[in-house]
């Protein structure tokens, strides 16, 4: 049974590599662009692989705590897979969103070209992500974390413009920088922990560590900063608003919805499963972490508010929203962590919806700026409704999902013994929510109510094809519905939080 865990990892990786290799050889033979028939085959193949893997991954994840030692990378460090609560949550979210985005991109990628490369990489990244969530120890996680960076990088530079290449390099180098900061921490944890296997509550050996608290805290802080790069935390967030907008919209959706969450996953894993929250509670590390998270929340919103380009605005919004999660984690309290996990799930759905909508707009009209979206509601009302629902959820207007997570985050902050931050945190969250409303609503407002200036225009309907619209609608629906029926989630996350705290 546990051997099956390899299937959702390696099936997409192998299938994706196959597509990539065939595309390279085809290019050598100077074959012309994809024919319609070949394109259909490609789509069918990718979809089949992805669906099979996703279903398998979810089924496996919910069929108990499986573990599998693949082989020994070093003498005492195996490549070790293990499914636990956190992994289960992440793999489910990832699989669902990834599949939805994949279906969307079948249509979308037609206008971007290079579909073989895109879908090949898309599958590979999925395999890597599943492996990342399945990872049972820190080194395995680090291995797939690096692979995730490397394989997702070509998604960013997909269109091959100079701007995209520079953005991809920026993404790569920031991520590498983060990964190495994380590695710095891993090195020290390896020395002072009894094992690097993820254990709720941490494995830090108090006897070994005594006398070395100073360097350990520095190491842990380095890890937070490092993995925080992927999560777009200050001060290393700058790659995110550069890379997300230039990538093709499905890729931005995947990056913003899923890949940044992997930074969060890495932080959860190292703080709650290796170091143990008790070690950093009340230290300068926790304080600094909270300060950084709150600053990012506020700054991200502010920047998003000022940003005229829609996708960039959404990217800044991601910066801000992920730090909601990080703030929740930094409070080191059960409620706050529950809130954080909720926000992980909700934000994944919400942000991919928003990016996909932005993609639809680009696909259909080529417009990128918020200014140009006036009257969008007349042209593609269904799309805009999806956008609106997702926005509501992100702002946190009940009963949409964002409200629930923010509620728990705020409550957690108030409960936790974190001094001034227990009230400062909620205040910042609130202000940021207002700003969120400020940067998301204008699109809806002007979209449905273009005002007089554009009255002469005859709005022609240009709703996207259903294969594009359906996944978006599905994701938007999820974003709302999860907020309406949040109880199973809250309960489950509460258990996870209780197990580690």
């Amino acid at each position, binding site marked *: 049974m546990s051997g099956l865990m390899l299937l959702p990892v390696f099936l997409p990786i192998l299938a994706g590599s196959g597509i990539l290799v065939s595309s390279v050889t085809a290019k*050598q033979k100077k074959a012309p662009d994809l024919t319609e028939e070949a394109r259909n085959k490609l789509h069918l193949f990718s979809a089949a692989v992805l669906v099979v893997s996703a279903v398998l991954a979810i089924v496996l994840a919910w069929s108990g705590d499986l573990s599998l030692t693949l*082989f020994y*990378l070093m003498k005492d460090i195996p490549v070790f897979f293990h499914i636990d609560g956190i992994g289960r949550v992440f793999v489910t979210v990832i699989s669902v969103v990834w599949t939805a985005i994949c279906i969307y991109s079948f249509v979308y990628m037609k206008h971007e070209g290079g579909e073989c490369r895109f879908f090949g990489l898309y599958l590979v990244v999925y395999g890597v992500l599943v492996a990342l969530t399945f990872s049972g120890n820190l080194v395995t996680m*680090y291995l797939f974390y690096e*692979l995730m960076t490397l394989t997702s990088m070509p998604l960013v*530079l997909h269109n091959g413009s100079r701007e995209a290449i520079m953005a991809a390099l920026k993404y790569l180098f920031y991520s590498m920088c983060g990964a190495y900061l994380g*590695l710095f921490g891993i090195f020290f944890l390896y020395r002072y922990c009894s094992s690097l296997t993820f254990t709720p509550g941490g494995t830090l050996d108090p006897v070994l560590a005594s006398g070395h608290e100073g360097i350990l805290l520095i190491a842990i802080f380095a890890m937070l900063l490092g993995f925080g790069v992927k999560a777009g935390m200050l001060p290393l967030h700058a790659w995110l608003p550069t890379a997300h907008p230039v990538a093709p919209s499905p890729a931005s959706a995947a990056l913003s919805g899923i890949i940044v969450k992997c930074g969060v996953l890495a932080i959860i894993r190292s703080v709650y499963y290796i170091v143990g929250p008790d070690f950093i509670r009340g230290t300068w590390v926790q304080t600094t972490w909270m300060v950084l998270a709150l600053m990012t929340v506020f700054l991200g919103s502010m920047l998003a508010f000022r940003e005229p380009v829609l996708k960039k605005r959404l990217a800044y919004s991601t910066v801000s929203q992920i730090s909601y999660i990080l703030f929740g984690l930094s409070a080191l309290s059960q409620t706050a962590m529950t809130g954080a996990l909720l926000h992980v799930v909700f934000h994944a759905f919400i942000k991919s919806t928003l990016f996909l909508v932005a993609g639809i707009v680009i696909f259909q009209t080529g417009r990128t700026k918020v200014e140009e979206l006036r009257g969008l509601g007349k042209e593609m009302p269904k799309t805009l409704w999806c956008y609106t629902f997702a926005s509501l959820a992100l702002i946190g207007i009940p009963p949409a999902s964002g409200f629930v997570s923010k509620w728990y985050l705020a409550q957690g902050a108030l409960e936790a013994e974190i001094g001034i931050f227990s009230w400062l945190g909620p205040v910042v969250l609130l202000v940021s929510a207002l700003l969120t409303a400020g940067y998301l609503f204008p699109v809806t407002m002007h979209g449905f109510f273009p005002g007089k200036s554009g009255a002469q225009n005859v709005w022609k309907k240009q709703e996207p094809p259903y294969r594009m619209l359906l996944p978006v609608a599905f994701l938007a629906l999820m974003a709302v519905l999860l907020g309406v029926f949040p109880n199973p989630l809250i309960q489950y996350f509460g258990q996870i939080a209780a197990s580690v705290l």
Partner: protein
Amino acid sequence: MNAAIFAVVILLPILAGALIPLLPFRNRTWMMVYTEAVVLLTSGLVFLTLLNRPEEAFVLFRFTGNLSISFRLDGLGTVFAGLVSVLWPLASLYAFEYMKHEGHEKIFFMFYTITYGVTLGIALSEDIVTMYCFYEMLTLVTLPLIMHTLTREAVLASRTYLYYSLGGAAFAFIGMIFILSYGSTSNFVPGGVLSAAVLGDKRSWVPLIFLLCFWGFSVKAALFPFSSWLPQAGVAPTPVTALLHAVAVVKAGAFTTMRITYYSFGTEFLKGTWAQYVLMAVIVFTIVYGCSRALKETHLKRRLAWSTVSNLSYILFGVILMTPLGLVGALSHMIFHAVIKICSFFCAGAVIYKTGRNYVHELNGFGRRMPVVFGIFTISSLALMGVPGLCGFISKWNLVRAAVASENPLAYAGVAALLISALLTAIYMLSISVRAFFPGRNFDMSTIQDVEDPNWMMLLPLVLFVILMFYFGLHSGPVVGALESITAVL
């Protein structure tokens, strides 16, 4: 097995190499066959020797009194000799193809083969005098290889190389004399040959002498501020740069520092002295310095050479930690970096050979036309950065494990330096790959219509190196275990 085999494996390539310009080869192929046969024979003998290791020493020749040229094989020597003898035949294979366009092949292969023998001499040295002699000889026999093209640039480079190497040897000489005078023996003994009783009040001199000696020997390992010879020497034909300046010569420098630190001076007298700290600080600096110079460099081979500078200091960092764990890290990086760097140099060489382009900015789109070469180049870049699953990660891990275990703040700084260097490595290596594979939308592929992958003689070594990188990366247990057993005697 008789210990005389040591002399055979060392003298065989030296003598057979010296014969190359004298022998009347009918054509180029015969010379290639002869050279490869000599190299393979030597490697075969080396393997044979490594497998049935003779315990006793072999004295080739005595200078005066206790000074002799003598050979013995111990664990450390096994590692170096094994490494060299695996890589040499592969590199020669590559060189046969590459040297077609360089000319003067007879002279080239003469010195190339002689260098093999001399390098083995360093690996098999029983005592510090023998090692010193072969170290000096290595300078001399590799000089013509750097000068090979005889251009002004090459001459200047060889001059720098010579000055630095001889100068380094002059300071290493100091340490050698000290060991000769105050050591219980000049042989290499795990744990060192100095004793407090013999040293008496000279004990306070040990750190200073060690510092000079270490710095002297590590000139070949391009320790700051004596690192600029290595990038300059990049003017040599690529097989030389790859094999000598990524493996034989520079690793010989690192190897000699291991010998003097662990086997002559002994860590007992050095640990915690100012000499250790000064050297460690310099090494840590070099790690970052090499990388930042690589970042600035636009010439492909020189960029790789600067990267070697940095990576050699990884090895030295392991050495200067002065713990058995540190030596394990150093040795593993010695092996793994050799494989990685020779591979990336060969890729660079393939580019130069096929297209004559030397600069990074000329490589746009090459990945499309030379997918195998650039694919392998990318993999070796990843290995160099230390991506898990490839061998670079293992050695980095071992080094850092030792550094963290040493609980020395400067070593912590070293850990940070290693990671900074890894980041810089990512930048300067991957930017090449990205450029090669993703030249940009408006790039006109017809301008590089002539570019294509080289033939099997060049590709075969590359593929083998990639396999090695993955093998060591995924299955490092046996190798690291062997290294640990070697250092266990310390």
